[in-house]
């Protein structure tokens, strides 16, 4: 018997062909809609869902509720598969747990333990999604990788560069998490949702009857149950044989005077007010964290505001490195309204930023993203010029 006739009842799948695009599918409505959109454009699609973290790995976190609406839950993989079945394109679950741990989870925990406030999503984009996943997408015959990010990418023929732009819908913009992409990575990326609002995406999902059309958005850091990152840090450290019980240290004021004790610098972030244990008097905030001396420095709100700071690991996105200082609007955290500043490159990877007006809680470990000062959010010129880590 000929095997081809024996198995010809299997569902037909798209042949590998030029223009094949891989979609990074989380099982959520955004990436699922990306797949539907590309398919509507007549493009051959292959879905890839990353298995990134074993939710059963840290048993002491199991009490934090069922593992649903979190990355890599069985439900999410199931949802991604259901969408692929509904739209009838090939879909595969691919395992990147090792890379995710070494490039995202471990650095995330390590940063907190030295008093910084990391952004795991940026590392995941730069070092997992658009690195091994993009490579795998290309290895299996896809030319590009599409994701459900709200951002825009375009080619500027004049400058010969790939430009990253904020999403048309500024309330959903995720360009803050994508500044680390290289020109090569951008040239292989597609963000089909960048021109759409969330409502339009939901409407589209409903119109094509996606099984996930009504699924709630995920807000949390995907590998941390219930957003409780302190518990996660404790559990993960314990697994590595590190106890955080003796992480206790001093809380001091700006003058260096000891005014209290803390239970580990990983519990704090710049600008934090809660959890300091001071009830009376003027509200106090974390001003800085001194990991060498295991100290948390606190002070009043006014002292949180700073005008000058430095960054490292600068990545030039929509522009090449300029020869001198340049103007930009600078965003220093996800929910920060970009503020005008002058950026002065110090060398290839470092720069000094001077805001026109002081900004509250400039936090080491967060990213500074430099936007084109000539356009407003959502416009056709809202380019990400560059991005870097706050030192």
């Amino acid at each position, binding site marked *: *018997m000929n*095997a081809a006739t024996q198995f010809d009842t299997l569902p037909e799948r798209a042949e590998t062909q030029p223009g094949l695009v891989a979609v990074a599918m989380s099982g959520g409505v955004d990436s699922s809609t990306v797949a539907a959109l590309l398919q509507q454009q007549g493009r051959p699609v292959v879905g890839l869902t990353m298995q990134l973290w074993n939710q059963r790995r840290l048993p002491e976190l199991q009490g934090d509720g069922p593992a649903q609406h979190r990355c890599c839950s069985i439900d999410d993989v199931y949802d991604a598969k259901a969408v692929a079945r509904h739209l009838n394109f090939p879909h*595969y679950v*691919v395992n990147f747990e090792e890379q995710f741990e070494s490039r995202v989870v471990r650095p995330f925990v390590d940063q907190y333990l030295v008093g910084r406030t990391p952004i795991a999503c940026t590392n995941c984009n730069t070092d997992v999604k658009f690195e091994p996943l993009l490579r*795998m997408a290309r290895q*299996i015959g896809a030319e590009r990788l599409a994701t459900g990010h709200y951002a825009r990418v375009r080619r500027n023929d004049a400058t010969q560069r790939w430009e990253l732009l904020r999403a048309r819908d500024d309330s959903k913009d995720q360009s803050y998490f994508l500044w680390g992409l290289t020109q090569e990575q951008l040239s292989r990326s597609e963000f089909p949702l960048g021109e759409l609002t969330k409502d339009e995406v939901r409407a589209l999902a409903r119109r094509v009857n996606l099984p996930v059309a009504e699924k709630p958005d995920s807000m949390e850091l995907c590998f941390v149950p219930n957003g409780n990152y302190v518990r996660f840090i404790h559990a993960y450290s314990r697994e590595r044989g590190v106890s955080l019980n003796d992480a206790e240290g001093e809380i001091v004021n700006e003058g260096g005077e000891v005014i209290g004790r803390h239970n580990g610098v990983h519990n704090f972030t710049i600008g934090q007010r809660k959890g300091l244990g001071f009830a009376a008097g003027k509200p106090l905030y974390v001003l800085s964290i001194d990991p060498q001396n295991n100290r948390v420095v606190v002070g009043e709100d006014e002292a949180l505001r700073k005008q000058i700071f430095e960054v490292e690991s600068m990545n030039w996105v929509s522009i090449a490195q300029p020869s001198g200082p340049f103007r930009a609007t600078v965003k220093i955290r996800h929910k920060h309204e970009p503020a005008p500043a002058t950026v002065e490159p110090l060398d290839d990877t470092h720069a000094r930023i001077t805001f026109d007006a002081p900004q509250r809680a400039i936090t080491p470990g967060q990213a500074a993203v430099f936007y084109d000062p000539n356009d407003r959010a959502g416009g056709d010129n809202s380019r990400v010029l560059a991005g870097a880590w706050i030192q």
Partner: protein
Amino acid sequence: MNRVYLDYNATTPVEPEVLDAMLPYFSGEFGNASSIHTFGQKARAAVETAREQVAALIGARPQEIFFTSGGTESDNHAIFGIAGPSANASKPRPHVITSFVEHEAVLNACQALEKQGVDVTYLHVDQDGLIDLEDLRGAIRKETALITIMHANNEMGAIQPVEEIGRIAKDADVYFHTDAVQSAGKLPIDVNQFQLDLLSLSGHKLYAPKGIGALYVRGGTRLKQLLYGGHHQRGMRPGTENVAGIVGLGKAAEIARQTLANDAKRLSALRDQLEHGLLHRVPHSRVNAARAPRTPNTANLVFPGVEGEALLIALDLKGLACSTGAACSSGAVEPSHVLTAIGLPAEEARASLRFSLGRQTTQADIDFALQVVPAAVAQLRQLSPTYQKAVAQ
């Protein structure tokens, strides 16, 4: 699109003759084999015929065959049924000997036994996946209750020296169980020649449906039951018999007994052709367990510089179905425990692919594989930084 299936070690299609034999027992002959009336008697007759057919495939007596839900249940029953903790606390801790290359159904059952206080020795294997008989002799203690060593390995096809193991077990008066899921229907099996006390087999690996299997238990073996219920299968494995599945397994066993020799000859020729073709066309490729006696249908090759997972997907998109190892291990982080056990470094274990042939495999299928695999490997290597670096050196 042309689709070629080279993953018969994962599962096989139900043989049309097997399906035909089963169909009456879903609705027409639906009786409960335990019932006294004529409906029941017809079902009983079908079950007992199947028992004879399965027994004949492995040289056993029909009353030594118990039907189960599949290979996993058979393995668990053999292991827990012999070495599971005894109610008699004064008895010494039992000891079990197995190997590092067993299927998860055996390995994880043994690990569960360890948590219950049973000592387990895991024998190492050589680079061709075979245990050392001297190691086995040395591992036997007076408390050893069970030796469980697979007949043929699912990932590489390597065949363990079961006849010699049987002799050693017999001399030491230790029960010997083999997981024959990957060998039943592919290799001749005689439970007396191999001096086996217990043997597991699974329907869906030999052209019968999923969800049916059998456990051979030599008469007189002191095997505890795992499930409690009615008197079905002499109380050893209660639960209303899956008559249609049992009939399917019986028919498949009968066919296998008749076609085994011819299948083996035809498939080993195709397999060798595939292996030689790939070795010739893919630079730096190697066959895993190349020097071991192997099941005639299995080829496992390492293609250094590729991720097996990516290669598997690339091939599937081109219409070729194969596997990166045991079906259960795809999606897991760890590289195959079998390939690790033969000494492959993690990156080579991950760069390995299994092709397993079966009755429907044709020359055209092999030609197709020889056309698409080298091209896919080349494409992956071109985009593999580690391979490019290695080549540059």
